[in-house]
């Protein structure tokens, strides 16, 4: 399956504007894309972005960013309230292809698994953005394994492929 994620440019701009902001102690910021399924499991669309408030970070020298229980609870609540999947998103400050760190691989899949436990009819996942590219995986409805996102496009009056 050629798993595709489409992101409205306005939402991506909002996310990047947020993720690039410095934080008092976190090296990286984290946010969440809201996402919705379509009638084909192979296409997921992003429908919004939610910031993690400054106070919801936990100081952790071993991680670029560590979010606390409140942030996770808010994400879980959004799944119920808005019927949207949650995609954990953060930004790596460089050009070119990017990918998950060991910490990302250790922590984020478990978090996404808890999203799926909340509502497994919705897609949930992880996206990492660089300045020019992106990497991502999704847990699709009913599936237990993450699927790599093969095509990520940003859409407004133009189209960009990440």
């Amino acid at each position, binding site marked *: 399956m050629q798993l595709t994620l489409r992101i409205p440019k306005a939402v991506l701009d909002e996310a990047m504007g947020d993720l690039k902001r410095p934080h008092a102690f976190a090296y990286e910021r984290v946010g969440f894309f809201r996402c919705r399924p*379509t009638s084909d499991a192979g296409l997921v*669309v992003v*429908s919004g972005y939610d910031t993690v408030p400054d106070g919801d970070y936990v100081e952790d020298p071993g991680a670029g960013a560590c979010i606390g229980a409140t942030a996770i609870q808010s994400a879980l609540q959004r799944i119920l309230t808005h019927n949207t999947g949650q995609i954990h998103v953060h930004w790596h400050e460089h050009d070119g292809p990017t990918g998950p760190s060991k910490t990302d691989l250790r922590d984020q899949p478990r978090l996404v698994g808890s999203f799926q436990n909340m509502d497994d009819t919705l897609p949930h996942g992880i996206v990492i953005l660089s300045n020019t590219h992106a990497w991502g995986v999704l847990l699709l409805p009913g599936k237990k394994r993450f699927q790599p996102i093969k095509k990520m496009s940003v*859409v*407004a009056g*133009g*189209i960009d*492929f990440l």
Partner: protein
Amino acid sequence: MSDRYQRQSFLGENSQPKIERVRVGVVGLGGGGSHVVQQLAHIGFQDYVICDPQTVEDTNLNRLVGGRLKDIGQPKLAVAKRIVRGLQRKAKIKAIADRWQTRCDEFIFCDVIFGCLDSFQDRDEIETFCRRHLIIYIDIGMDVHKVENDPPRMAGQVILSAPGGPCMKCLGFITPEGMAQEAAAYGAAGHRPQVVWPNGILASSAVGVAVNAITGWTGKTPSPVYLSYDGNSGLVQVHPRLEYLLTTQCPHYPLGKAGKPILQQL
């Protein structure tokens, strides 16, 4: 870049790979759609989903680009496929000999869809589909109106409708009154006047809009695009309505409602 596309290298360093990566849909392969398909094939698009349920009739040949006398009785799809294959041997072509609504799953992975349709109803539906799936929609159409005691008036439009931006309702192109009139006239619409050259102008403009959306070669990718064509004077210009748009964000298709409809149990 292949030598063939050297003359279009001004579109940008990565323009050709980008064009080749895009899946393009063309709904309606008549007077407008046949022009569009031909130009897309020349430019180098490699991945097509094309759709038309009709067969070629003699009365189509005044405007069906690529159509030949031998094609009468054949599906319009066959003409379109021949045009593409004649220029792009390795292109992927999904050909649908039906109304798009019956096979819309085939269009989900399109990045851009051209609507070369006759009715407001069809346009409304396909724009809604595109908004749900975050697909850029480009609409073209023309009409000729009889005016008492005056020569006929020819007009047409090219509209780019993109996720988040104003839609064809926001632009006043699709209105409840227009839809109601169309529904009332169902079955009595008759044959609309159609000739080749305005279709060519509109299709060319539409393809230009699409290529800019994909390559960004002009440095701007506006949304929406609304070009109006005065067939009597030959003028294509930005529709004056764009000046009076009340909002740049579409209230009809908010981004938060993209994807499958959210069914609320009552």
